[in-house]
């Protein structure tokens, strides 16, 4: 008998992650898994998240115990794809052992190689007066964006975020697409001048970014404020947008949790910042020390507070969303989808009701305002589905 074996490995969530801890397994050895089922909770210093099964089959080995910390890429477990019966697993014990031995040997070699490799570093592009930081992953590194046959995916983060918002998405999507994640004006490592700070200014910067990199047409994925920015661009320059994915997006209704926006701008201390960031997640425990520290480090930069106040004042005046574009979604000819978390405490999930018929809506249970982190595998599947 031959069983088709798949490795479950310690994921790499973001450039800074080099190891992770197994918090707990969701399933016992011998359990049957579908693709995307949650297998094991992984904790990094930044965030705790569930790792989803890369294959359907039977979990035949759990190799790392609860509480153990292992490097990125290390073997956590083995799945026997399609194995019908536990008996077949038992019969394949020698094969599984050989699979593990081969993996461990190859991993030692790969780890040695990785030590000399450098990850693709973020770059700065000057675009129509905007100074924008971005990171590219996937695609053919040698070819320019414009010459690619398939449109790349461009990821646009939300208010106060940066390109690290996509740490669970960009590496995965890069297996099939060229994927760009940028820092909006006033955010991350981009320039802190936000101009008027309104949707027109920000979508203008996004358009300038595409032009500067020679991206004629992109699959736009926007989160929260970034959703409204992407939507504004799609309405103004439909030819530049191949498809639109709006995740927990602004711009679809007037309500917004003003306490979050005010709190994010005002919080200067670790404890205050942590409490504010916990509003983003269905499970507040997801927020780790490094996430809080990263946000504080960003907020300490000269010009950031003014940038955030400028954007908040222009886009969310008086604790409401100044621009609601929901009805204009029907003008879009390209595929459009909306992804929301049922537990979103920043933008009410009810804003997905009554959207035009051309919009595909996915409501994710047990996710808050950050479905791209909280249900990364499902969100990645949905993005890949629309981006072809």
């Amino acid at each position, binding site marked *: 008998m031959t069983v088709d074996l798949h490795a479950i490995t310690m994921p790499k969530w973001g450039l800074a992650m080099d190891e992770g801890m197994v918090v707990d397994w969701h399933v016992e050895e011998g359990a049957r898994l579908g693709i995307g089922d949650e297998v094991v909770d992984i904790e990094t210093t930044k965030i705790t998240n569930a790792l989803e099964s890369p294959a359907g089959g039977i979990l035949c080995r759990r190799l790392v115990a609860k509480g153990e910390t292992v490097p990125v890429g290390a073997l956590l477990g083995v799945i026997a794809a399609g194995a019908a019966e536990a008996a077949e697993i038992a019969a394949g014990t020698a094969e599984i052992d050989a699979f593990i031995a081969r993996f461990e040997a190859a991993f030692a070699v790969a780890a040695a190689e990785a030590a000399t490799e450098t990850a693709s570093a973020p770059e700065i592009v000057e675009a129509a007066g905007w100074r924008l930081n971005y990171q590219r992953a996937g695609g053919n590194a040698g070819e320019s964006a414009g010459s690619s046959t398939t449109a790349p995916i461009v990821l646009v983060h939300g208010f106060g975020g940066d390109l690290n918002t996509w740490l669970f998405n960009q590496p995965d999507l890069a297996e099939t697409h060229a994927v760009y994640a940028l820092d909006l004006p006033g955010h991350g*490592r981009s320039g802190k001048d936000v101009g008027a700070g309104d949707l027109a200014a920000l979508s203008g910067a996004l358009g300038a970014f595409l032009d500067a990199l020679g991206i004629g047409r992109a699959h736009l994925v926007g989160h929260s404020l970034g959703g409204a920015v992407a939507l504004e661009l799609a309405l103004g320059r439909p030819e530049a947008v191949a498809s639109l994915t709006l995740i927990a997006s602004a711009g679809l209704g007037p309500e917004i949790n003003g306490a979050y926006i005010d709190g994010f701008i005002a919080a*200067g*201390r*670790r404890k205050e910042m942590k409490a504010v960031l916990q509003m983003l997640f269905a499970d507040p425990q997801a927020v780790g*020390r490094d996430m809080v520290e990263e946000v504080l480090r960003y907020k*300490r*930069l*000269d*010009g950031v507070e003014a940038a955030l106040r400028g954007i908040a004042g222009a886009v969310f005046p008086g604790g409401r969303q100044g621009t609601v574009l929901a009805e204009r979604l029907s003008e879009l000819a390209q595929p459009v989808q909306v992804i929301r978390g049922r537990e979103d405490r920043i933008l009410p999930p009810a804003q997905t009701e009554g959207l035009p018929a051309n919009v595909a809506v996915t409501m994710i249970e047990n996710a808050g305002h950050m479905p791209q982190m909280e249900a990364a595998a499902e969100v990645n599947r949905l993005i890949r589905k629309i981006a072809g």
Partner: protein
Amino acid sequence: MSKKSYRQAINEALAQEMRRDPTVIVMGEDNSGGMGAPGEDDAWGGVLGVTKGLMPEFGRERVLDTPITESAFIGAAAGAAATGLRPVAELMFVDFMGVCFDQIYNQAGKFRYMFGGNAVTPLVIRTMYGAGFRAASQHSQCLYPIFTHVPGLKVVIPSSPYEAKGLMIQSIRDDDPVIFFEHKVMYDDEEEVPDEPYTIPFGEANLTREGGDVTVVAIGRMVGFANQVADQLDKDGIGCTVIDPRTTSPLDTDSILESVEETGRLVVVDEASPRCNMATDISALVSQEAFGALKAPIRMVTPPHTPVPFAPELEDLYIPGPDKIEAAVREVVGYGA
């Protein structure tokens, strides 16, 4: 963002603030160096090169080489601060405070109070401290507890390059006299430091590690040692929260007390002489405010009460290094067991 040394981080902070604000000046012994010797301008940048490169960019009007008279130039800096400039004066080694202390504790530190709030004193005194440099007992002391003792002074002790840049910019922008302590053996330590200016607020401790068993409060260079120990003990199942107060005046007492309420155990690591230092101060705070939470006696990890020895073997023994910190943590965790 790029890797920068502790020295480069401080230099960049000074340069960026001098560009931003024309009232910021730098002064001290050989802060550029080569005064009066043609072709030797910018020869030194201070004794360990922290201010190198500032004089060519900002000129002798704003980068002043001073005579070796701390009482004169620290006093001049205090006066300049009270009358509209933002001087950053270098007191080369903190061990030399004795010759200029009146200007600091009885003048600069009291201007705001004595003039009924009508004067501000935006003065920064940069100074080197600490053992391990083979510089003997007159160039190796910590002495920050003495400044912490004086109302009206703010005391900043950065533990890494990132911390040094943000805290230096905050120090320059602050309207009160700030004593900024630079550990001389850390100048070549490197880490990622943003290129942009940024500030780290005073009185906000940094939790550099989080764990549930022991709170380790460490000052300055000791933070790195405490982190090493925390990482090591984590593998043995002992969780340490490491707290870097960043500033000893103001002191973030809330973060320390909250952590001890959770862990029930406290180790304080302080490179200063053991009597009346930050370790005794923080131990007293916790004894008074969180006695009920303590599961074990507090341990203080400090040097012995002696001058810093010159013999390298003795100097190494003197410093409260990782081995002593680990032993103290294991002792409080094992207490009563």
